[in-house]
């Protein structure tokens, strides 16, 4: 039979975070599942869920933090799988500038790149050390996270990834001081998740796709270097020190079982979002996330 067309919108540019998806492709897992998978990279992480909701894709990558906002605004999307089941986001300052504890941020400037939830994350983290949002100045630096930090335009930034920007800062010898949100009162969340359109949840291709991704993740865990070689060949612009380091930092973060839904984690994060006022309604778990069974 002809392989079925299956469109996957990545969350952003192709990067090592997408390792399992590419691994599955390289080992022919999609083809064996009867799927002709197209991995499309948008330039703006806001696009994929909307295009998915508009019926322009079968699966879109997004973030668990974003999921609640999407559903709250009535977008017909559900989480159906997890690609990275650890939070990667960090609050980062530069070493040697007098910031060693969160408390040192009092009176400082914190930069962020708008994703919708930063104020709440920072507020929660500060609260855990007895500070309030009003004790710091927030600056939206959009796509300038690293350069804003490096040029000392801000004292700390939130939104850097422990598997990316933090590595880069370390490589540049800047001794980043890293604060993990989950250490300061923010409930842990899945970083990178797979969404499907509500109307297509019964699409028989979905479980096949997720199973193929699991194959990819399994293969990646064992043969990371082989996949990397092919990945760099396909994406020559990623062939640099930082991306390779990022590749090697990621394996522990990939979900071993992409289909599995950690109900407690999703419920807790929903409550966190609701309490913070980021969502207007606290809906049952299955309005946000489902587990796809083959």
């Amino acid at each position: 039979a002809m392989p079925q067309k299956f469109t996957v919108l990545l969350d952003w540019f192709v990067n090592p975070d997408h390792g399992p998806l590419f691994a599955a492709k390289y080992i022919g897992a999609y083809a064996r599942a009867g799927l002709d998978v197209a991995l499309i990279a948008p330039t703006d992480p806001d696009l994929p869920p909307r295009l998915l909701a508009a019926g322009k894709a079968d699966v879109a990558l997004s973030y668990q933090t974003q999921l609640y906002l999407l559903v709250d605004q009535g977008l017909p999307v559900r989480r159906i799988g997890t690609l990275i089941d650890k939070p990667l986001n960090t609050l980062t300052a530069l070493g040697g500038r007098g910031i060693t504890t969160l408390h040192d941020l009092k009176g400082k400037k914190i930069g962020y790149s708008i994703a919708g939830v930063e104020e709440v994350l920072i507020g929660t983290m500060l609260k855990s050390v007895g500070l309030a949002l009003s004790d710091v100045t927030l600056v939206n630096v959009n796509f300038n996270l690293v350069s804003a930090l490096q040029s000392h335009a801000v004292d700390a930034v939130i939104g850097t990834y422990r598997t990316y920007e933090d590595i880069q800062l370390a490589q540049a010898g800047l001794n980043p001081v890293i604060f993990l949100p989950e250490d300061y009162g923010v409930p842990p969340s899945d970083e990178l998740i797979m969404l499907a359109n509500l109307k297509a949840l019964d699409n028989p291709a979905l479980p096949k796709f997720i199973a193929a991704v699991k194959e990819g993740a399994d293969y990646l865990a064992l043969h990371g270097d082989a996949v990397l070689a092919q990945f760099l060949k396909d994406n020559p612009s990623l062939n640099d020190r930082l991306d390779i380091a990022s590749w090697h930092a990621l394996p522990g973060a990939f979900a071993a079982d992409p289909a599995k839904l950690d109900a407690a984690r999703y419920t807790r994060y929903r409550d966190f979002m609701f309490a913070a006022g980021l969502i207007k309604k606290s809906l049952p778990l299955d309005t946000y996330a489902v587990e796809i069974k083959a």
Partner: protein
Amino acid sequence: MRGARPATTFLVFLALWWLAARYSSVPPFMLPPPGDVAVALWTQRGLLLANTLVTLAEILLGLLCGTLLGGIAALGIVFSPVLQRWLMPVLVVSQAIPVFALAPLMVLWFGFGMVAKIIMAMLVIFFPVTANFADGLRRTPPGWLDLARTMNASPYAMLRHIRLPAALPAFASGLRVATAIAPIGAIIGEWAGASSGLGYIMLNANARIQTALMFAALFILAALTVALYVLVDRLLRRLLYWAPDTTGG
């Protein structure tokens, strides 16, 4: 009846929008119906007003500085072949640099305050002004310049009393374009990093998928742009009372 015509335009536009939102296949989280946007406009009026003022200030300052800079650059280009040779490529290149490439340097030099945003807006605005104005200055009818020469006009007087007014129609074209793109210039400035302004509101609303709020801000921006354009256009037409206008057939 004054104002009847713009009002009709506006109503027709609302009707079209409503029809598009209602009957097209575009989902509401991409194009919310006017009603939702009106609700957002009203409930968020405080937020929107405060941020509109910020953006308006950026637009006006950007327009002012951009026009001044453009004017000066045009004069430089027209009066000095050397400057023309060196400046023009730089100006052309400046138009091709995307925000995200420039933003880090802007941040480094000017921080995240108003200055960086006004500079970004200027960068967007000044080229149409420069190019049009320079073309206009270059096209002064030679007879007038000859006349001025026999009258012992200083280069400055010649500029002030002959070349400038003669270039006014071309300058007006440039200023019209600049006015239409000044708002997007300010938005791009806010994009590169800001904590207030309509662009910031839009980015934020976009990330939170508050489409109605985003369109409310967009609506204000559009209204602001049209109002500014109409104002500048009227002003320019008044200044150009003497230029031929052979519209229509």
